[in-house]
């Protein structure tokens, strides 16, 4: 039976499962003012995002446009200091072209901190009424885009939480959803088995090239995508972590390779290549888990499945995060932060299939409006930093 729920219909035809106003600072110098504007509003209605840098970056500009026109977003207030390099005219045009309410406040021209905060709050209040009138429309699982990441991984992640997330992916893809897995730096050693799952041989070559690029990139940096806590949790090497992370992708055929901001053109499984192109610049590809979550959202993810072993507590602005705890001890310690106890698999109390079904059912109820633990707690983390990407090649996407 095809599950249906009420989505928020946007002018481009896409549908959202949330209807949030985002307040976006365009340089760190405007961060404080933007956060003061958001303060006091409901966490669900108004959320803070932003880009800290003063230097221009095409990736950041494109990401900001994608995020501000995400189907979960109803309206946007940009907060600029005034002298930063971010192209606020282009960003504002992208939002107004999408038929969303948008305003840009320039602190240097708005009378400084206090007056900009007051003006901003006033705009948000009036925008909330407009945004509340957005048309609702029936939405099916086949219109959902779901991302998955793992963070704070340990030796349990690859045995319980990640295989269960993979089962959920298989179920969702079977119902027509688009699902995205990522972090090519954590697929090192999985190239051979992954390439066999590519829809075409040409795509297989692209998948292999993406992982080889990640390997070179991390070799230059001197560290793998591996934190000290991974080792304390029983993971000894990047390839051990990778094999555990890879099973999040489930068993479906891989339909395409996308980069941050590319929206899957139809249902199926996609790999997101998150490692920058070209020479190593700007540091580590994603400096923390929320940078990966933000990239999923920029590619249209309505929600993210986050598998954790050590115990991450984060959520995200714009799209809800479902936290799947792989480690039974961590689940008991951090139960208030965890949506799913996949640790029960390790204790022999539940099967991977049962927990996969539970995750699938939770995705449907969150799409219907149920709040995740991190949403209830008010977590709305966000981070966007500098990167460089080339467009994806012609073999990367399926024909629609």
């Amino acid at each position, binding site marked *: 039976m095809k599950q249906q729920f009420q989505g928020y219909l946007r002018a481009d035809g896409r549908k959202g499962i949330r209807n949030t106003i985002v307040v976006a600072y365009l340089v760190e110098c405007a961060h404080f003012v933007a956060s003061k504007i958001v303060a006091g509003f409901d966490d669900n209605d108004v959320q803070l995002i932003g880009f800290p840098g003063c230097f221009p970056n095409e990736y950041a500009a494109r990401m900001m446009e994608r995020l501000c026109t995400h189907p979960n977003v109803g309206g946007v207030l940009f907060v600029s200091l005034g002298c930063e390099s971010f192209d606020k005219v282009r960003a504002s045009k992208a939002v107004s072209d999408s038929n969303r309410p948008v305003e840009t406040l320039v602190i240097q021209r708005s009378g400084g901190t206090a007056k900009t905060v007051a003006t901003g709050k006033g705009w948000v209040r009036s925008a909330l009424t407009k945004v509340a009138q957005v048309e609702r429309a029936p939405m099916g699982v086949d219109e959902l885009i779901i991302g998955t990441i793992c963070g704070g991984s340990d*030796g349990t992640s690859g*045995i319980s939480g990640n295989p269960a997330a993979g089962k959920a992916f298989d179920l969702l893809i079977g119902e027509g959803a688009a699902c995205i897995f990522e972090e090519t730096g954590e697929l090192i050693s999985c190239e051979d088995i992954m390439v066999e799952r590519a829809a075409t041989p040409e795509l297989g070559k692209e998948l292999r090239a993406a992982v080889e690029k990640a390997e070179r990139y991390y*070799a230059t940096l001197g560290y793998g995508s591996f934190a000290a806590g991974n080792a304390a949790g*029983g993971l000894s090497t990047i*390839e051990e972590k990778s094999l555990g992370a890879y099973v999040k992708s489930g068993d479906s055929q891989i339909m395409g390779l996308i980069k941050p901001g590319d929206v899957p053109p139809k249902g199926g499984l996609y790999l997101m290549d998150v490692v920058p192109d070209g020479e190593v610049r700007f540091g580590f590809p994603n400096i923390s888990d929320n940078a990966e979550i933000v990239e999923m959202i920029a590619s249209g993810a309505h929600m993210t499945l986050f598998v954790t072993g050590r115990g991450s507590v984060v959520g995200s602005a714009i799209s809800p995060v479902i936290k799947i705890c792989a480690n*039974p001890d961590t689940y008991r310690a951090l139960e208030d932060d965890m949506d799913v106890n996949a640790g029960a698999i*390790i204790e022999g109390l539940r099967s991977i299939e049962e927990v996969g079904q539970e995750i699938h059912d939770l995705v449907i109820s969150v799409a219907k409006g149920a709040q995740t633990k991190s949403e209830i707690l008010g977590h709305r983390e966000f981070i966007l930093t500098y990167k460089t990407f080339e467009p994806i090649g012609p073999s990367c996407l399926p024909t629609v």
Partner: protein
Amino acid sequence: MTGPFILLHPNDNVLVARKLAPEGTNVELASGTITLTQAIPLAHKIACRDIAEGERILKYGMPIGITTHAIAAGAHVHVHNIRSAYTPTYALQDANGQSAEVSS
């Protein structure tokens, strides 16, 4: 395999702890019963047979690293005795509370 350890794939040369295995726990291996000389935390690995220096460690039936020392059956397998075939592992301290170590 019995007790708190699980063999994830028949080709593996390591077992994974399904829960904390205290020091002194007896573990039945193909070569006979061994007694843990240290506690093995949840999701950490022990060797299920003697493994020579330079041998590949298999988990999920897949290679996860290369031994830097010979490892006796039943011993803890971690950053102090295996290394990545790709990039070095950064660890603040291992499960025994030993000092920071980068296996390279």
